[in-house]
Each structure stands twice: as structure tokens, then as C-alpha cells.
């Protein structure tokens, strides 16, 4: 009887243009048959944004620590147009409700 553990990004979603939602599955198998699957999630946006006075700062998200498949999706989804749309959207919102 062989118990194995596999970790994979089983779902990478692009939501509302710039949100990259990543689901990481931990799969336990017994003799090749799946007996357990659990999920861990995180979301990536192209920037972390803040406003100081009237000035906005958009710090690019560091995706170097992400898996290659996630990086590929981020790089494909985060075009210059999408990045510009993110900044426009963010700056149009109030910093507080």
C-alpha cells in the first residue's frame, strides 16, 4: 500500500480582468486512487495601491515566488491595458467608504 501526496494548482481563474484566483489542491492517494483532497487559495492583483494626499502609488505585485503556471497566467492576463484599467478603477474609488 503506497500513500502519496501531490500538490498542484488545480484551478487558476481570471476574474474581472485582473484578479487571478489560485486554488492549490493537496491530493492524497492510496495506490494511485485519490482518497483525500484539500484546498488552499490566494488571489493576485497586478498592484498594491495606496493614496497619500492626492498621490496614488501602485506597487507592482511580485509574482516571482509563484508557480510557473500561475506566473504564465498573470503575465498573459495583466496586459498594459488591464493594468491601466486597474489603476483607473482603483483611483476612481474612494479610499474609504
Amino acid at each position: 500500500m503506497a500513500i502519496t501526496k501531490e500538490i498542484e494548482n488545480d484551478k487558476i481563474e481570471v476574474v474581472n480582468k485582473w484578479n487571478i484566483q489560485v486554488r492549490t489542491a493537496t491530493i492524497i492517494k492510496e495506490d494511485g486512487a485519490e482518497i483525500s483532497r484539500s484546498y488552499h487559495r490566494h488571489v493576485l492583483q497586478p498592484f498594491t495601491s495606496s493614496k497619500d494626499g492626492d498621490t496614488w502609488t501602485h506597487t507592482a505585485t511580485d509574482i516571482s515566488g509563484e508557480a510557473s503556471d500561475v506566473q504564465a497566467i498573470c503575465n498573459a492576463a495583466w496586459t498594459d491595458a488591464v493594468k491601466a484599467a486597474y489603476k483607473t478603477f482603483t483611483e476612481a474609488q474612494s479610499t474609504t467608504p
Partner: protein
Amino acid sequence: MTGIVKTDQIQGAQGTTVTVPTGNTLAVTSNATVGGTLGVTGNTTMGGTAAITGNTTVGGTLVNTGLITASAGVAIGGTGSANTLDDYEEGTWTPVWSSSSGGSVNSYGPQVGVYTKVGNMVHLACYMATSDKGSISGTLSVAGLPFASEDRTSLYQSGSIWMNTIPDGSDFDGDFHIQIYMAPNNDKIALQSLDGDGGTANLTHTSLTTNTDLMINISYRAA
């Protein structure tokens, strides 16, 4: 009569019925095709898999002791998308402090987050404590969330927070109300205090100590 063994077709005359007398059993070891309605007044027991390509109507109570899978969702009270539960998921996430001005927390103590997504509602909880706040600076928020919030104009969504070990005299030292919210189409939780002057103040690194810890519960509509 001890039995009739037919190796070819059993067929009654047109308009007649083939009857299996009480106490006897009709055993079909291979396939059976029913062109019309199959009426069963007693119980039906299936040892194998039932594959139904058409609709199934159950007038009474449906009891299922195994797993029900519904990849297209479950419609309740109607058949439109507003009546369809089409997603359910449980999992974990890792809460982290995110800074507007760079830097990061060097290390955490406990750092645990869980979520349950039911339809488009995400219910999440987390607890985290810093053990070395490092060089983090600027306005802080909680990041690492499992789903982005819904992109709906002015839909700010709030939750509850517990915070401890804050520098005395800070806006977040407990003298004032502390609150959290998610902005539309966002992946972070913002933290504010009512500053006692009728306004709000954002949480910054100056309100963090080496051992600041917090708990958050929030339910929000996902993207």
C-alpha cells in the same frame, strides 16, 4: 410447472400481459428495454449503477445515503441562476500583512485562515500574530484572501475584528472603535479606527508592535 426457460424473446399477444405469478421472480441477467412507462408498486433494488439520461421526477421523499454530486448546481425555489446553488468549497488561506509603502513582516507566530464558499458568499475567519514586524511601513491591510470581492459599485462589505497588543496612544489602542471592510473588486481587508473626532484613521505600521495579533471574521460577496 417447474419453470419455463426461454432462450429467445418472450412475447405476449398484442394487448395482453406477461405475468409472473406471486412467489416467483422475473430475473433479467442481461439488459431490459422498456419502451413505455415502467410501473413498480413495490420496492426497487438496484445493485449496480443507474444511468438515467432523461429527467427523473420523485413525488415523495428522496433518501440518499451516499454522496450526491450536482455539477450543474441545485435549483431551489426556481430554475433561474438566482435560484441555483452552483458552488460550495471549503479550504484554507494564509493571512498576511500587506503594506502600501513596502517592506514586510519578518515572521509570524500563528497564521491560520479558513474559508467556506457557499454560492457567491465567502465566509472566512483568520488568526495571525506577528513575532517580528520587520520593516513593514505605511498603511496596512490584511491580504492573502481566497477570493476577490464582487465588482459592484459602492458595495463595501464589513466584518468583525479582534485586535490585541497595540501601542498605547495609537488610534488602535482600544480607546476607539476598530472596523474593517472590503472595497469592491478587491483582494484585501482594510482596517480603520473611528478616531474620536468623527473621522476614520487607517491602520499603519505605527500601530503594530512585535506581538500584535488579530482575529477577523467576514462574510462577503465574491467576484
